[in-house]
């Protein structure tokens, strides 16, 4: 059991948290309690941190990756 932290720009609804749990299981191989942190700087989308790994599906992360690809 891992602690799953999900960052979003608004407080996620239970259905959305359920989707997050599925994604964490599928993409990071983590399952456990989910803690939702609201951070408006990620603009939209979510960022999942579990078991020392990170899955960034936010708009902020997408723009940052675009910037990295350009340099």
């Amino acid at each position: 059991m891992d602690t799953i932290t999900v960052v979003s720009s608004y407080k996620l609804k239970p259905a959305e948290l359920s989707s997050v749990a599925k994604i964490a299981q599928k993409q990071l191989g983590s399952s456990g309690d989910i803690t939702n942190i609201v951070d408006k700087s990620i603009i939209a989308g979510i960022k999942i941190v579990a078991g020392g790994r990170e899955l960034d599906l936010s708009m902020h992360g997408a723009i940052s990756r675009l910037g990295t690809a350009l340099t």
Partner: protein
Amino acid sequence: MEINIWQVLFQAFNFGVIFLVLNKVLYKPVTKLLDDRAKKINESMALAEKNTKIVEEADKLKKAEIAKARKEAMTIIRTAEADAKKASDLLIEKAKLKAKEEAARILANADSELATKKKDMEAQVVELAVAMAQKALMQAVTQAEAEKITKSILADK
């Protein structure tokens, strides 16, 4: 006037004696002295002529030696001038090559520095653009839109 034969004979005898004595005592030594002197003068003249010839030969030899030495000196000077010119040309060529290499090195350094600065600047521009885009999107995207986008992302994954 009568001629005294005995007196004539006596006078002739006296003359003969005086002649013999003078010939023996005075004439021959004087002649010998004159001959010796003439011989000595001739010898001196011959020696002087010989010496003159020697001096002339020495003079000719000296002039020839001077001419030869001058020629040799000119050859040495020309050779030295040619060698100096060669050395000078070589030094100039080396200096030109070194200057060219130095210029190429400076140019390469400048190019490298310029490329680095350009890359840094591009990175800064991108970083700034990313920050601006994030800030603009943060202000532009409403919560409803954010929710819609988030739902869409969750549905895709």
